[in-house]
């Protein structure tokens, strides 16, 4: 049995309480959400927080709702709920695509959206999804709240914009007409982290892509949205040749490393191939065809 170093533990009763505890305890304290990233790291003693603030009782952070032109998801919403949500599946099928290939049912029953984004693992699937969808993150502290884009949220591997006295409470995803999205992942085995994964979202009208984004995981220090892809997508007419070109742009703009999951060359190839596949499906979905 792997055992963590000693730590103190407290269960927060509200968001305010959680933030107050965090503010009081300082940088040695960590929130614990699903615990499926933090606890393994603590057991391996890669993380040794002195205090854990358990936020699993914060009912106010479990939700998926629609508010005018956006979907709002509470930070404590679990993988399982993201997978099951018909509202998400209707507007952003990329979520269900991704959730089907994240971890296993045991992990999905506990792991949360907030925990996933805050973990900021370069291979994290939900970060790639949120990047793809141009989500923004609501970060709260005793001073109030601020909203940051995914671009600004991740500041490096395992590093986010959430400060020592702050908490991520909500993720907001803009709703725009004509949208379609999809996610593709290659893993060595079910439940493994991505060798590479690629999410694509497009917003179309009259058969043309008005706007589009791609989010890639495991090809650089953070999950990345690739600017040149967005540029290429804008105003483009979809075709197989075009998907291929976009895949090539994605591949040219990532910097994977060789490791046990695969060689850099293979990962670069996957960035291309998976982007091509996601794009093809996203376009089909935007046009009302399930692909």
């Amino acid at each position, binding site marked *: *049995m*792997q*055992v963590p*170093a*000693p730590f103190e533990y407290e269960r927060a009763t509200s968001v305010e309480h959680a933030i107050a505890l965090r503010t009081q305890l300082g940088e040695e304290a960590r929130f614990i959400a699903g615990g499926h990233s933090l606890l393994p790291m603590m057991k*391996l*003693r890669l993380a040794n927080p002195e205090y854990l603030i358990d936020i699993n009782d914060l009912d106010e952070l479990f939700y998926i709702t629609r508010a005018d032109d956006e979907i709002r998801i509470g930070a404590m919403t679990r993988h399982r709920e993201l997978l099951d949500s018909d509202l998400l599946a209707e507007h952003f099928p990329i979520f269900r695509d991704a959730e089907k290939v994240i971890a*296993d049912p045991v992990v999905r029953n506990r792991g949360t959206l907030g925990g996933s984004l805050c973990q900021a693992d370069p291979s994290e699937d939900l970060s790639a999804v949120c990047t793809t969808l141009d989500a923004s993150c609501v970060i709260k502290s005793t001073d109030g709240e601020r909203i940051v884009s995914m671009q600004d949220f991740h500041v490096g591997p395992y590093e986010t914009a959430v400060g020592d006295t702050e908490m991520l409470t909500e993720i907001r995803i803009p709703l725009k007409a004509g949208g379609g999205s999809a996610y593709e992942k*290659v893993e*060595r*085995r*079910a*439940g*493994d*982290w991505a*060798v590479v994964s690629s999410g694509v979202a497009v917003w179309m009208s009259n058969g043309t892509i008005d706007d589009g984004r791609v989010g890639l995981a495991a090809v650089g220090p953070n999950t990345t949205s690739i600017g040149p892809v967005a540029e290429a997508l804008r105003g483009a007419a979809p075709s197989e040749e075009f998907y291929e070109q976009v895949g090539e742009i994605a591949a040219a703009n990532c910097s994977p490393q060789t490791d*046990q*999951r*695969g*060689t850099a*060359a*293979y*990962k670069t*190839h*996957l960035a291309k*191939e*998976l982007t091509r596949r996601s794009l093809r499906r996203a376009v089909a979905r935007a046009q009302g065809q399930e692909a």
Partner: protein
Amino acid sequence: MTTTEPAPDTTEEERPIGFGRLLRKEDPRLIRGMGNFVDDISLDGMLHLAILRSPVAHARIVSIDTSAAEAHPKVVAVITGEDLAAQGLAWMPTLSNDTQAVLATDKVRFQHQEVAFVVAEDRYSARDALELIDVEYDWLDPVVDVRTALDADVPVIRDDLDGKTDNHIFDWETGDEAATNAVFDSADVVVSEEIIYPRVHPAPMETCGCVADVERVSGQLTLWCTSQAPHAHRTVYALVAGLPEHKIRVIAPDIGGGFGNKVPIYPGYVCAIVASLVIGKPVKWMEDRTENLVSTGFARDYVMNADIAATKEGKILAVRTNVLADHGAFNGVAAPTKYPAGFFGVFTGSYDLEAAYAKMTAVYTNKAPGGVAYACSFRITEAVYLVERIVDCLAHELDMDPAELRLKNFIKPDQFPYETKTGWVYDSGDYEPAMRKAMEMAGYDELRREQAEKRERGELMGIGVSFFTEAVGAGPRKDMDILGLGMADGCELRIHPTGKAVVRLSVKTQGQGHETTFAQIVAEEIGIPPEDIEVVHGDTDNTPFGLGTYGSRSTPVSGAAAALVTRKVRDKAQIIASGMLEVSVADLQWDKGAFSVKGDPTKSVTIQDIAMRAHGAGDLPDGLEGGLEAQICYNPENLTYPFGAYICVVDIDPDTAVVKVRRFIAVDDCGTQINPMIIEGQVHGGLADGVGMAMMEMIAFDEDGNCLGGSLMDYLIPTALETPDWETGHTVTPSPHHPIGAKGIGESATVGSPPAVVNAIVDALKPYGIRHADMPLTPSRVWEAMQGNHTPPI
């Protein structure tokens, strides 16, 4: 769901008295969570031990400061290698007559080697205190690449051994080199390939551990331990630690998987015994997952250069191989003394050859020691992989169908017993029907047609064939021993007055279902229902001596012992029956469970009646003692040689190189089947194992010798999603020398499946001109091979 054809000798009834699909007797306890594993054992005043391990692969120990750890309020003791050295216990023998450090004294020789241990009041404090020990290391260059381990300028790892000036362990050879070379020189076709079996790990669900309890007054040591071989362990403790053997009791309670990982004696066990001896309290040591993966017995790690010679018509003439074996920092291979390369000599496979020759060099590297029989029957996994891969390479060169090529070269039924060119005597075999059956179940010709069509369309589909012959059930004792202990096994059977029985075994289940199958063997021989037969095993105080369960030896060796001891009891029962029925012994006939008078079936006595008479009032026939029990020690005449034909079908996504195993057909022949359900279970597990090794498992190291496989997120084992619905079948070719004709089945599938999967993947890649690619065939490695960039994994 799994497709299985019914076994011919199987009754559908749930409770056969004898062989058949009896539900497992151990399962009610295990599936209700009421098993009793080592970590469930808790004794009064028990302390907990944790081991400090080296962070680096090769370094001299400059100093160790334990003062801060000793000051921890819950720490009872901190022990270093120096402390052990003072007692003469810093080193211990390995199963291959090498030595291994219990705790490092001079230097560390692999990353995660044991350096010191802490004993504390709870396991958390023990673990916390490890962080308080300060060790200063003087780094040395590590030897990581097995291919350069013998170069002149590399550091000598084992400078503890007198006069050692290199990293060489042994050279070994088998077969006739000159004759083999002569065949090669005149052969039409010669195909050569470097074939690698990377280092893998048994990774049992339950890690290794023990509870040691030395009783202060009597000096009695009781050791609850994750041991596949409790008797062998006890004797080794007696020989090494000088403890009197009658004062040692080793108990292996429920074991959560062994696969060879629980054959060796690990430093942790010795540390716990020493701690209990010194402190006078029971001490528990239980590895965590990382410790198990990075420090305990690995398997394989062979770089094999293989050559095969044949006529242009596809008659295989000879196989030749040169192997470089990585044994890690200490030679801890579990193999019989005279077989440093295990039973690798069966690399001639299932084929009738003119000549064969193998040469092996084993070396030390700065990696974890081991080389256990990971479900491999002592290196047969490597041997079978070698021959089944190189035969496929030959098929590729000759442009012949791989099934056809095999059929053409099989040893014929009338050649058995067959002596191979490396001196192994295969007891029985009938290979062609097994192969034809597998082909029929697979719809082989149809699959090949489908493949041809798919190839036209650029789709990648592969069909892999393998045919293996296993060699299991070590001894006989004249040829096979481990540390001088002969490989023979005892068995004791006692029938109680009311006709219930207890059978005591020297072997130990780790999930194979001994409590069921051994009850069935006894039931088959004496007619007592299996539920009335208690199977006792895993406790040296309560079972006869024997060498334990590994290399699929339980059924071939102890299974034979169980059958023979039961026959011995039945012979006595017959004499008692003759007295009861007042006829001569020769006038009795045996119908399972009762003796009756020949020609007058109304006059009969059941085994239960006889048991009561054996213990009851009244006279027994002249010269007969009371009681109904016997004990024997079975020394096998030969190994048993199970075999099987496997066919694997894969589809590969040409763009992502992701491999999907679509189908797997396994036809096994393990002779007489005791419990077909358990046999299928063993086969299912082994097949999953094979998919894992072929496609994802590998204990890798970086260039500094850091182990990259320290968690189950890094060392991948397959899940239900990577494995297809197994399609199993069988043929039955009994072993002629085994009393019930049974052969082992525990490792057949692990041995036979990796080549089937790899052959299928390579077959799918034929359009790319690929003839060979090494395991593990991850998507990345498959893709690189498709680009013409195949690189060996080590």
